[in-house]
């Protein structure tokens, strides 16, 4: 396999995955005690942490909206997250853009109208970035928001896909992301199948789009299964704990 080939003649990718295979992904609910809700998520070597505070009093008066909550998102990438050290400024355009994407993804899903004049803060920290920081951030945010008990219409699951020659690759790692092939990040509401975010910044033949969409929706459903499993497990634990507490109180 030459240096520039992303897929071997046997149909395997650089890290040994098949074209339509996700990286190993694991999630944990509530790793942080200070936040109202938090989650840690790992897609291969990409590690994302999300924390939710709120609903709380808006920090700036201008942010208070009389009919719904203001959603404030901060996206941060650790200086040691990538191969080369990068100290990013808080006002780095790339970070602001990422935060904006996450905001747009979640704004229609979170039922902000239940909390007028308040603010919900969502802080995202990418600890290690081996490709797919945006979709890892969205998946981690879904879990953190659910953990915080913010009412939502559905989960949001996201994944990246890329069109490479005749094949479509799912869940790109850093090497695959850094090529000039068109890649897109898709966020899906798995229950209704609605697309919440679609981001693509390079040229792609229009005929290929529907294939890529099908692949990404299939990928999102797989991720959804993992997230759902973690949420249900956590929910049952909480129930268990609550029933133990009430038993102690009855004694």
């Amino acid at each position: 396999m030459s240096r520039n080939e992303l897929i071997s003649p046997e149909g395997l990718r650089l890290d040994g995955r098949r074209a339509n295979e996700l990286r190993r992904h694991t999630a944990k609910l509530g790793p942080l005690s200070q936040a109202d809700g938090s989650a840690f998520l790992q897609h291969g070597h990409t590690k994302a942490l999300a924390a939710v505070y709120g609903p709380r009093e808006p920090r700036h008066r201008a942010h208070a909206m009389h009919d719904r909550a203001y959603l404030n998102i901060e996206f941060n990438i650790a200086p040691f997250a990538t191969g080369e050290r990068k100290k990013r400024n808080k006002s780095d355009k790339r970070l602001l853009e990422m935060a904006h994407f996450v905001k747009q993804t979640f704004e229609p899903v979170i039922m902000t109208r239940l909390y007028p004049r308040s603010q919900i803060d969502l802080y995202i920290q990418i600890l290690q970035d081996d490709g797919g920081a945006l979709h890892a951030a969205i998946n981690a945010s879904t879990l953190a928001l659910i953990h915080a008990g913010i009412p939502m219409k559905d989960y949001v699951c996201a994944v990246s896909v890329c069109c490479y020659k005749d094949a479509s690759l799912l869940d790109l790692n850093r090497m695959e992301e850094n090529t000039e092939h068109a890649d897109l990040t898709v966020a899906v509401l798995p229950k209704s199948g609605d697309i919440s975010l679609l981001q693509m910044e390079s040229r792609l033949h229009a005929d290929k789009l529907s294939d890529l969409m099908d692949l990404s929706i299939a990928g999102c459903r797989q991720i959804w299964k993992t997230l759902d499993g973690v949420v249900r497990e956590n929910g049952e634990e909480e129930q268990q704990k609550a029933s133990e507490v009430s038993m102690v109180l009855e004694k």
Partner: protein
Amino acid sequence: MSSTIPPLPAEAIKKLLPETYHQSFIQKGVRPDGRGFQDFRPTAVHYGAITSADGSALVRLGGTTVVCGIKAEVAVPEPTQPTQGYFTPNVELGPMCSARFKPGAPSETAQVLSQQLNTLSLGVLDRDDLCIEPGQAVWALYADVLCLNYDGGALDACQLAVTAALRNLRLGKATFNEEEGAVRANARESQGVPIKAQVYTSTFGVLESGQCLADPSEAEGSLVRSTVSVSVSDQGRLVAVWKQGGQGCDVALIRACLDQAQERRAILESLLAPEASS
């Protein structure tokens, strides 16, 4: 509205009258989390948590979680100190780790912490060990410490994380090519950095009554009138002492803190002992 009002839950007393809440525990000789006055919170170190860093460690001190990642770069030394490399610690206490910290520019607390870590690092690393070619190239180590969850004891946790990340650090064998004027690092022959001495920091909170609490948590901070941070090296030598806060305290009390810090040092040493370069 009904005329019966539910009594305040214990959780509410803790929030509304933190001093009364904590005082009632202290008077009985215990702390709200069940510790004795001299007990530190459970501490754990996880080496190599960040694989994209050249050296990293995740440290938990009770509810406080910090992660330190060290990145190494090749830099040109200062003309006045041609053999000295750079070590730059930077602490980030973002709004993620506690509702106490606001978004925006680094807080004063974070800047003070970065400076304290820098001071302590002088006893840990010999800057001359970071030299690749005098006057041409040296290693610049950036130690970024992110606080993920804040519950007091930031200096202790950050210093432990930096120490552990330095032990975990692997640098490629660097050679300076005179013709190209560039440095080549061979990642296969990686090696650690020589560490002069490991420095361990222990913080104590002094109450108004003159009693001393080891490793005060964030909630206990409301009672603490001044703090004493003691840093000792693995040879048992004193590296730094910071006493902060308005209330003066006895020399005897500081001496007691020194003794406790020495005891704590032995525990931290065994905690860090497992092989760092996994």
